[in-house]
């Protein structure tokens, strides 16, 4: 049994960043390779998958921990890994999640050998600004990359595919090739309606979710062919299995995680690992044994109840998470925690862009909590949910125990928290003696 640690991961970095501005750069110079992973959704899981692959390839790996993806989180990881004399183990590869707005600074301190771009979607507009602002920052960041860096690009997202033309070095394109992926529901929120450069509208022969899919424009631009691709995707409750195609051949694998976005996370990790020279067999066996990061499809056992925590921080990410809860006939006990801290997004209007309507028939009972519990409850009323069993503002512990007490033993509670609520949940569970399901099974 493993108990869950406390939340804060950025403190050592903050201290060292203040003490010595060049600390990160000096340590980064000793790395044999660096992978940066950026994008709106999928950073944490893709980075964790890549770190696992690299360890399976017998490399020493430094990896910034869950969500600590600003500059100081990166510095903290480097400092923690270093000896007292300030040296890193030989043949060390760093895997850094890079906050999409902090990419330039992180790349300057830790120049990437490979940089993964997962997707670019609407997220916390009060913090990041408009999508165009992020796209512009990425273009600037590319200018500071070493010329021999390789980009790993999710070409199903037209905004990511367009980075290839802005980069003179090499790249590995990844995407989904399966023609039978179910299309996105009508009216689902979508951001990139047209190409920011040419103003051409993106059209789709098949759209998977948000602006991801098989896209083209009337002017003749189209989704390029991926070099690392997923095909024959079979989504089941125990996990998703698919064929993973590499330039050197294909393998079949099963992930202990659900949903199309899990496939994208695996593709991102596989593309980056391929760029770093890891053989396909190592990649696939490491992916198959991947365990979820907290809040990313992690299953826990708490007071004899199974608990699944699905982080929901923006419309596209949450719509995808909800889709994993909507098998025919499936109904869940839900706890939805909506905070409005800076890390959550102070603006909670995004909950109106989440397709709660399609979740309503799959809801057995619901408790709402967090700073903006009442906003959430109003949104659910509009979506046709059953009346909440409880509405608990602020006190996450109270919301948790109200939610748990309404779930019969051995049944499952699904928790959908925003980021800071997820940290609170983790802390509470640590105290309550929660354990990972696979450790007790």
């Amino acid at each position, binding site marked *: 049994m493993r108990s869950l640690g406390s939340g804060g991961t950025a403190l050592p970095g903050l201290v060292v960043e203040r003490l010595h501005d060049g600390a990160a750069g000096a340590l980064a110079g000793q790395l044999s390779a660096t992978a940066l992973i950026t994008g709106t959704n999928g950073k944490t899981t893709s980075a964790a998958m890549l770190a696992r692959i690299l360890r399976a390839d017998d490399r020493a790996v430094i990896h910034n921990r869950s969500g600590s993806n600003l500059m100081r989180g990166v510095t903290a990881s480097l400092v923690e890994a270093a000896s007292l004399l300030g040296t890193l183990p030989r043949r060390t590869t760093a895997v850094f999640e890079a906050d999409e707005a902090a990419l330039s600074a992180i790349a300057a301190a830790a120049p990437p050998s490979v940089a993964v771009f997962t997707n670019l979607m*609407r997220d916390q*507009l*009060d913090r990041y*600004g*408009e*999508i*165009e602002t992020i796209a512009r920052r990425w273009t600037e960041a590319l200018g500071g990359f070493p010329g021999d860096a390789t980009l790993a690009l999710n070409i199903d997202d037209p905004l990511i595919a367009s980075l290839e033309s802005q980069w003179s070095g090499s790249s590995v394109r990844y995407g989904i090739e399966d023609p039978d992926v179910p299309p996105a529901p009508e009216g689902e*929120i*979508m951001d990139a*309606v*047209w190409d*920011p450069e040419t*103003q051409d509208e993106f059209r789709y022969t098949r759209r998977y979710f948000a602006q991801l899919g098989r896209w083209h424009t009337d002017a003749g631009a189209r989704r390029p062919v991926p070099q690392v691709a997923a095909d024959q995707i079979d989504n089941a409750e125990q996990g998703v299995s698919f064929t993973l195609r590499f330039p050197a051949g294909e393998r079949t694998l099963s992930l202990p995680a659900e949903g199309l976005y899990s496939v994208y996370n695996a593709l991102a990790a596989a593309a980056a690992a391929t760029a770093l020279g890891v053989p396909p067999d190592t990649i696939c066996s490491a992916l198959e044994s991947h365990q979820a990061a907290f809040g990313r499809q992690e299953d826990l056992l708490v007071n004899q109840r199974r608990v699944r925590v699905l982080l929901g921080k923006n419309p596209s990410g949450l719509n995808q998470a909800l889709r994993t809860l909507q098998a025919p006939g499936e109904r869940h006990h839900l706890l939805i925690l909506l905070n*409005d*801290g800076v890390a959550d997004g*102070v*603006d*909670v*209007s*995004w*909950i*109106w*862009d989440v397709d709660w309507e399609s979740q309503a028939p799959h809801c057995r009972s619901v408790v709402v909590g967090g*700073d*903006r*519990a*009442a*906003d959430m*409850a*109003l*949104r659910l*009323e*509009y979506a046709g949910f059953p009346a909440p069993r409880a*509405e608990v*503002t602020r006190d996450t512990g109270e919301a948790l125990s109200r939610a748990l007490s309404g779930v019969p033993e051995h049944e499952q509670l699904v928790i959908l928290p925003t980021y800071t609520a997820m940290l609170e949940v983790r802390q509470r569970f640590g105290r309550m003696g929660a354990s990972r399901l696979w450790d007790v099974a």
Partner: protein
Amino acid sequence: MSANWRLNVAVLYPELLNLYGDRGNARALERRCQARGIDAEITPVVIGDHWSPDDTDIILVGGGQDREQRRVQSDLHRRGAALRDYIEDDGVVLAVCGGFQLFGQHYRGWDGEIMEGIAIFDAVAAHPGPSIQRCVGNVVAIWEGETVVGFENHGGRTYLNEGQQAFASVVSGFGNNGGDGLEGARRRNAFGTYLHGAVLPKNPRLADRLIALALQRRYGSDAPALSPLDDRAALRAHAEALRAAFSPAESAIGRRFA
């Protein structure tokens, strides 16, 4: 009395101007009409559509990123005269954020580029530059003696010309420009505001006002009175937004209107 009451609600450019949960506004009108036995027909209007405001009772237009606003500009101008006639004929409008700016005289980007509006409101907006802080945060304003709550996030500052009425006065937040204490604009039955959230679900009195004005215009003295609804959830969300606007965290980062 099973008179078939009906209101036609048009949502302008919902694919492009939908930045801040604005789809919640159409849902609020639809739901509050249905609860009173009024059919609310929601019609999305996209670029190039053959649509005129002739048989429309309420027009909603939301916010978008700058590039989306530029995208709709020429289509909106094509409809400018018809929209102005509609408003002179007391047609009801709720224009939020970018939509509010597009319904003004013009918007000057930080690069100096002018985007002409359709001049429903006698107001001009200007972006002071990329290094100047955006107006971001919870807002509380007073409209007809009551609080309206929402969230604002805009780089551009709006200034009302003399004689142009504001929609509300700011208690907490920036409002039009963070200086004159005014929020939004109102001309006849057209309301412009920077408040999103979405604004109508948690400000049910404002939603009902739009519905009542539209019913009055369509049915005159035969218009049905709006029966009270169970608004407990909406009013709790309203109270929570008030609390968020006045929380210590909010004032610590200097968002309070001084």
